[in-house]
């Protein structure tokens, strides 16, 4: 059995090595494009019905895409861009509700329920042993 375990570790290590060494090379312009896609995928197109800016072809979405790419080229970080957009359009525009005073319950309530559920189940199982 021991040799098997060892061989697993060897395979693991091998693959990790391959993974680390296989970094792709990307040109700056494609980086901006990819980053823009990543950002716009998390933004709501305000004039559409349930579409992201990335998916939409509306005038609003198109101008937003240009704007964001421009901001990236100006050296702004993702967080800065999100922040300025939220200031301008409100929290409605970002699909990630983030953690704030208003959304605290949104994030914690499901987790709390999970813990309660776990407690109930543990009690149920352990009760009669």
């Amino acid at each position, binding site marked *: 059995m021991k040799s098997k375990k060892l061989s697993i570790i060897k395979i*693991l290590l091998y693959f990790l090595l391959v993974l680390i060494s296989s970094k792709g090379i990307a040109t700056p312009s494609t980086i901006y494009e990819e980053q823009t896609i990543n950002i716009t995928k998390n933004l709501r197109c305000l004039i559409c019905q349930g579409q992201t800016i990335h998916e939409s072809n509306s005038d609003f979405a198109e101008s937003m895409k240009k704007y964001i790419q421009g901001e990236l080229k100006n050296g702004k970080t993702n967080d800065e861009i999100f922040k300025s957009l939220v200031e301008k359009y409100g929290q409605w525009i970002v699909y990630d509700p983030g953690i704030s005073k208003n959304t605290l319950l949104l*994030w914690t309530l499901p987790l709390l329920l999970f813990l309660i*559920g776990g407690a109930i189940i543990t009690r149920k199982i352990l009760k009669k042993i």
Partner: protein
Amino acid sequence: MTSIFIFLNSSVQIKRNVTVVSGKIAGLIGFQFFFVFISFISLIYSFIISDFSNETVYNNSHTTKPLFYKITGTWGNHEGSLLLWLLVLTGVLLGFILKSRNEPINYRLLTTLFHQIIVIGFFVFVLKTSNPFNEIFPVQKEGLGLNPILQDPALGIHPPILYLGYVGTSIIFSAALASMISNNVNKSWAKKIKFWILFSWIFLTAGILLGSIWAYYELGWGGFWFWDPVENVSLMPWLSLTALLHCVVTLEKRELFKNWTVVLCIITFALSMVGTFLVRSGILNSVHTFANDPSRGIFILTFLLVLVLLSFVIFVFYENKNFVQKSEIFTLSKETAVLINNWFILYFLSVVLIGTIYPIFLDVILDEQISVGPPFYNKLILPFLIPFVLFMSIGPSMKWIKTNFRIGLKSFLVIIITLILSFMTIYFIGEKNIFVLLLFIGFFYLLIKSLDQFSKKTKNFAQIFSHTGFSLLLISILLNSFSSKEIVKNIKVGESFALKNEKIIFKKITIEKENNYESIIGFFEILDEKNKIINLKPEIRIYNEPEMATSEASIKTSLFKDRFITINIIKDQNFFNVRYQHKPFMIWIWISTLIIILGGIFAIFRKNKEVNI
């Protein structure tokens, strides 16, 4: 002519009072179903002949539409879809009564009673707020037409299939309350009700699948699930049905979790009512919201609260008196596995529920608008999926009552194959995130463990298929989301661009005229890495009634990836906006869902076989 049918409908309402007392319930319920059926058929007929004296037809149909879309237009609107709701509601009751001939008369009567409460509620709702047979005067010559994005074959049959599952949960609710009162929650009840749970579950799964396929090719951006509130609303009953399915098996085999099964039955139907409320009230902004009318929302909300309160009262009164848990649960047993399954599924359910309704409450109470989108669901669901699939992998090998685990050579082999597969996949898609790796390990482990069940002596095909399907679904979704590639270009006819090793050439444009729309068709040639030519023909359709442009994707499906292209006109410019995508393993998302459904069908079949013996 049509108003006669409404009258008949209301007369059926009165009949239900007789229903409860009378011994010949089946006949009366058949009668009720028959009348709803006639109303439904006559509405379809009004749509077919384009009877524009009917308000619903006028608002949602047009003479130039193809016959198929005239028919599907019947339920492509608020009023018609509610009539469909009623049809299914009365239909499942009829089915239940016919199927339950050998069961206690008290139980059948009580089920009918509870079900009739729901039926009356919806009858009143239809008649008061959304009568499909309202007349308009003067009679119009032409209708306003159906929303073009609803004019699609998959979406044509999506509502009836989905409703069979969605509204089918009502009978589970009624039967659960009835069996609780008549002290009938036991093995044989579990066996019987399992049919209806499976029935709803299969149709709901199929309905969701159809909706996703439609979203994929019709909405034009290549996604199939966006955690849109309306999608969530269909997922929630599905989750609780899935939990219920596992729970009811435990009840059947071990007479355990009686109260919990009943609670799940109630939750399931309550969720489908919540869904109806959210979608029909117009609170949500989506293609499913046909009209915005607050009175409808208030009605459903009140009705929902009444039903929940009713079931709560019944539950409190009949709960502990009747069921005392006699058998104990061992830690290593299938019972524990089912509990863990329910625990996780209910957690996922709570994430979806809270994510869907929290923004509404926040808006109402604090007047603040937030969007809860994919990032929220991903963060709260994905980490929990890993332990969930691990439990799901081990669960089926557990035995009822008590299991003795042996870790043999085979377990190691399974783990090694899992690791190799996961690392290869990760390497192949070039993803370096350790979390993604863990997800793949979990999913592949589930896949192999599920397939391994084939080697067992006693095979449970229902479980093997649905679990295998589920693991394949997770793997394909994960692969799809990590290795999708896309490029968006604004180009003119004759120009070309490249994605990876492929060249996309914009050949020409033609314009064709159909009866109810005009279409601009782009001809594209794709040269793949082996220089093979693939032709794609995306369209822009400009519908005349109502006037609206839609973009029709052109998709070339292969075993490992879909090539997906859409075009759009750019205002005042002579070039086109072209979006070309590689969507890997798309077909596997559909196939694996079909495998899941197949598992459900096996379960129904298996049940029948047992009854025969």
